[in-house]
């Protein structure tokens, strides 16, 4: 067979060969490229294909609920419609149209009742916490009508989507807001700190920011579900490869009883408003106005350290945080001019405890023997209180100390000194600690620290204050740090005197005060106060974790110490002598059912030092009952409100009277209130109908 055609000249064979060579050479780059893609880079492309075709869908798990001691739901979840913007899709919208789109969107959302500014949408959209392909949450909680509208007019709003999410719901409104706290979007710091947690977090997730929501975050947080699926280009699911269902977070049951909580909040607010009605005082130093802007109240069970109620005024509405709080609202809540509504004064506010501190000074005197056989006087020995105390051989600073209003109580023993709240009696004790050899200068401080002052109580809430118990050493340090704030860096006898009556540099949180009294009245067991009672399975309601009382320490408190102190304090509410001297809270507890529900208490009136301003005293009262085995210890502090016996004691009296008379009103949720209102409206209309019928008959008669 001929290899080539007969007609073909040599030159053409060459040309054919060139063409063939060109054709063959075409295969070289193709095969080289195939080798590169399929053999050298195979792994990388397999991964990219898997990225393309497999998708992990995170199914959000609802957060656990927060219940009160009786199982009523304080914080629930509800479905909420969220408007999101698909950044990827939105990126294709021309910049000029974007502004108009945001404007239209804000208009539509606002028209539906959820007032929204264009700038809010824009700043959410531009927030750099989301990647370029993310769905950015813009506005929470829109109506169903608006959701339908947005779906219908989706061509007008490209990239704008809606999804249903769950948000926190507060059936009892702002009740216990400070305890419950609030949730919010993960901050950048939190994103890194939650990375190692067992329950996964996504960038859009919410996390407890304060209160119980923060403290029990790990329990409340649901475990998100995961679904690994194979998808096509259009994200249609072709196959489910792996599925882990979402698990709702656990419920947290609190020791709080909402009836007691609501009553505490009401009485606190009432006490403040009563205090504000006192006439302005004109003193030598200036005008004193009873502003009574803020206060706190704590109610505990002294038998196990459970907190039954904890109120802080002013309060806030946690609902504000549900859709993501606006900047203006947040500024309002953290503005000192609004008295910091977000501050939980019960654990974060530190106050001079004033006279409520005296029982611990008394304890110090008994414990060290200053009162007793080796000391300066016996328990029952009288000391003559002439209203003024002069420090013996005074060396500087203030040397003359007096009772409030220089009241002279005459002969007082330890019990009466507590009952009348004689400062002079305690000044005498303090001066003796300071002067007498064989006694520790810091005896009062040591005793106060036994009872938990100066350190955090360990309550199950974040952000607790530790208060302050001043000592010569701490004074020295403070002076070194800020020499302008003190006259001298050395500790003077006057400082010991001030400390002994809970003034000077002594600071305590209302909870510390409540907790110290709980130990005093329960026989000396200092508990770390509990707010959480148990953690419950959200589905079955079974207890997962039960929180036992946490004993911090057993204080040496024999009856010989506690009896005289408690007797003196029992008389605060009941004692009135023939000559008219009375316990500091006698009038506040007048007509209290003392027989059925014996109550004790201690008043306190403390001076808060504020630079360049004269402000009213802080009124305090600590009460407990029913004696002899108290079930309740209650502390109230009213800022700038005046005498503790006058303004604070009535708050606790009213509170305890309700408990004593077993008439604490059941606090209803908004839904329950609405239900009752509806029923009454039906009843009322039924009655009116009857009334309308009758005149008709009478018409006939007349």
């Amino acid at each position, binding site marked *: 067979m001929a290899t080539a*055609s007969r007609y073909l000249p040599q030159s053409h064979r060459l040309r054919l060969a060139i*063409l063939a060579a060109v054709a063959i050479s075409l*295969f070289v780059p193709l095969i080289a490229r195939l080798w590169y893609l399929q053999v050298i880079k*195979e792994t990388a492309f*397999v991964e*990219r294909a898997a990225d393309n075709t497999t998708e992990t869908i995170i199914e959000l798990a609802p957060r656990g609920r927060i219940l009160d001691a009786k199982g009523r739901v304080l914080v629930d979840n509800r479905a909420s419609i969220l408007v999101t913007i698909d950044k990827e899709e939105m990126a294709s919208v021309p910049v000029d149209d974007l502004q108009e789109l945001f404007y239209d969107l804000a208009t539509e959302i606002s028209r539906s009742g959820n007032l929204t500014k264009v700038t809010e949408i824009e700043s959410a959209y531009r927030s750099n916490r989301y990647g370029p392909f993310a769905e950015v949450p813009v506005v929470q909680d829109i109506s169903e009508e608006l959701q339908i509208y947005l779906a219908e007019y989706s061509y007008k709003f490209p990239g704008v989507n809606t999804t249903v999410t769950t948000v926190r719901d507060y059936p009892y409104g702002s009740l216990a807001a400070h305890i419950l706290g609030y949730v919010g979007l993960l901050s950048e710091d939190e994103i890194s700190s939650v990375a190692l947690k067992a329950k996964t977090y996504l960038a859009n997730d919410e996390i407890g920011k304060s209160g119980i929501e923060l403290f029990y975050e790990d329990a409340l947080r649901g475990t998100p579900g995961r679904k690994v699926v194979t998808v*096509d280009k259009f994200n249609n699911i072709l196959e489910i490869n792996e599925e882990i269902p979402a698990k709702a977070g656990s419920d947290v049951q609190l020791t709080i009883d909402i009836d007691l909580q609501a009553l505490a909040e009401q009485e606190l607010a009432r006490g403040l408003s009563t205090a504000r009605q006192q006439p302005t005082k004109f003193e030598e130093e200036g005008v004193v106005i009873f502003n009574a802007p803020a206060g706190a109240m704590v109610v505990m069970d002294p038998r196990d350290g459970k907190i039954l109620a904890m109120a802080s005024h002013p309060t806030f509405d946690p609902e504000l945080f549900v859709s993501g709080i606006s900047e203006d609202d947040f500024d309002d809540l953290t503005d000192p001019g609004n008295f910091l509504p977000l501050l939980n004064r019960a654990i974060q506010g530190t106050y001079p405890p004033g006279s409520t501190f005296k029982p611990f000074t008394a304890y110090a005197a008994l414990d060290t023997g200053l009162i007793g056989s080796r000391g300066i006087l016996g328990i029952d020995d009288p000391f003559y209180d002439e209203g003024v105390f002069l420090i013996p051989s005074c060396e500087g600073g203030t040397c003359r100390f007096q009772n409030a209003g220089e009241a002279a109580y005459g002969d007082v023993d330890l019990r009466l000194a507590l009952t009348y709240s004689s400062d002079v009696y305690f000044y005498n004790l303090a001066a003796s600690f300071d002067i007498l050899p064989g006694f520790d200068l810091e005896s009062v401080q040591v005793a106060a620290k036994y009872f938990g002052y100066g350190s955090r109580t360990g309550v199950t809430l974040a952000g607790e204050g530790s208060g302050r118990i001043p000592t010569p050493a701490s004074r020295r340090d403070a002076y070194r740090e800020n020499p302008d704030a003190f006259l001298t860096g050395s500790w003077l006898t006057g400082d010991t005197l001030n400390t002994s009556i809970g003034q000077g540099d002594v600071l305590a949180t209302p909870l510390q005060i409540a907790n110290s009294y709980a130990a005093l009245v329960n026989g000396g067991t200092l508990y770390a106060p509990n707010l959480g009672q148990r953690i419950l399975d959200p589905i079955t309601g079974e207890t997962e974790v039960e929180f036992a009382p946490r004993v911090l320490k057993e204080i040496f408190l024999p009856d010989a110490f506690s009896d005289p102190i408690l007797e003196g304090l029992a008389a605060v509410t009941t004692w009135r002598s023939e000559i008219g001297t009375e316990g500091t809270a006698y009038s506040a507890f007048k007509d209290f059912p003392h027989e059925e529900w014996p109550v004790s208490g201690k008043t306190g009136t403390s001076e808060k030092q504020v630079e360049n301003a004269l402000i009213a005293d802080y009124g305090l009262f600590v009460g407990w009952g029913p004696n002899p085995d108290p079930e309740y210890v209650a502390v109230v502090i009213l800022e700038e409100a005046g005498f503790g016996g006058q303004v604070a004691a009535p708050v606790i009296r009213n509170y305890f009277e309700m408990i004593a008379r077993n008439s604490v009103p059941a606090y209803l949720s908004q839904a329950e209130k609405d239900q009752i209102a509806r029923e009454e409206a039906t009843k009322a209309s039924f009655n009116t109908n009857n009334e309308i019928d009758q005149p008709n008959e009478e018409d006939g008669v007349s």
Partner: protein
Amino acid sequence: MRTSRERKNLNLNPTGDPWSPWLHVDIALVLSSVALAVIGAFMVFSATRGNDPALYDRSYFNRQLLFLGVGVVAMASAAYFPYRRIRDWVPAVFWSGMFLLLLVLTPLGVERNGTKAWFEFGSFQLQPSEICKIAYIFMLANYLERFNGRLDIRPLGNALLLGLIPIGLILLETDVGTALVFIAITMGMLLVAGAQTKHILVLTVVGIILSALVWSSGVLQEYQQDRLTSFIDPASSQTEAAYQQTQAQIAIGSGGLTGQGFGQGQQTRGEFVPEQHTDFIFSVIGEEFGFVGSVIVLALFAIVMWRCMRTARKSPDLLGTLICCGVMTLFAFQMFQSVGMTLGIMPITGIPIPFVSYGGSSAISSFVGVGLVLNIHMRRYQVV
């Protein structure tokens, strides 16, 4: 006297038996081109069947099998009539093809992906530029043959003018890819027809200058320019073209050495590569059959091209040689361009892979091309 012998042996069949040429059919060429078409049909099935086994879409597969059948018949027909006789019909076919190219620019034509290149009849489309390829090859061979392998400047100019007609019309469709195919065919055939080296060099330079002028003239839309350049650095581009090439490479790369198996390609199943049943069908081959399968497909093309070149050498006359070279160039260029663009080393031009890609016009024109080569092969002993 040569002419009288020609006239005398018009049948040009030494044995006188009209079926004897069929004894010389190039089996290898037939088998390899049909093999490519069968593989292509199954790839089309894999690319278009959808994901629900109960509802597999067989329509594309069935239609492609139909095209394969029609293509084989067309191949046989193209081989049946002696090619030197077909020559008489060629001008009529060519000019009707040109007329269709003109017609497709009218509102009768249908636009797809920015290119107006189709007539639509129900669910079938006709792409006249595909059919014109073969007519053009024959027409050009017919003209070039008479210069006995030495082209002076005038015949060269005439040939180029002839080529400008379909190329111009196709550029008016804005089908740059097909126009490039015509240019490649012209170049290949001119080379073999005896164009002088200096002319070829000048033509190449002029071609480059013209391309640059067209590029900067603004005739091309932005997306068209992008399609032509995105392969250089697809990662930097956010366009559909870059996406398409990136996805195609992911599909091919994830196929690895031996592929994921027929019907198992995740990229293919997810329909991540646009046009994966037509111009980008090589991504399906690469993903499902891997390097081995891809090389086998390329090897089949190599066989087809080899057989064309072999026939070109054995052809009894220059006409046959030129036709074979034209067809070979057509296959080589389309294969290289289309596979290369899928692999990311060539720009996106929207050219189908002969035999493999879905599409009736392409399948039929490819088989007609093979038929002509067979025709020449069968009649290689006939005395001219």
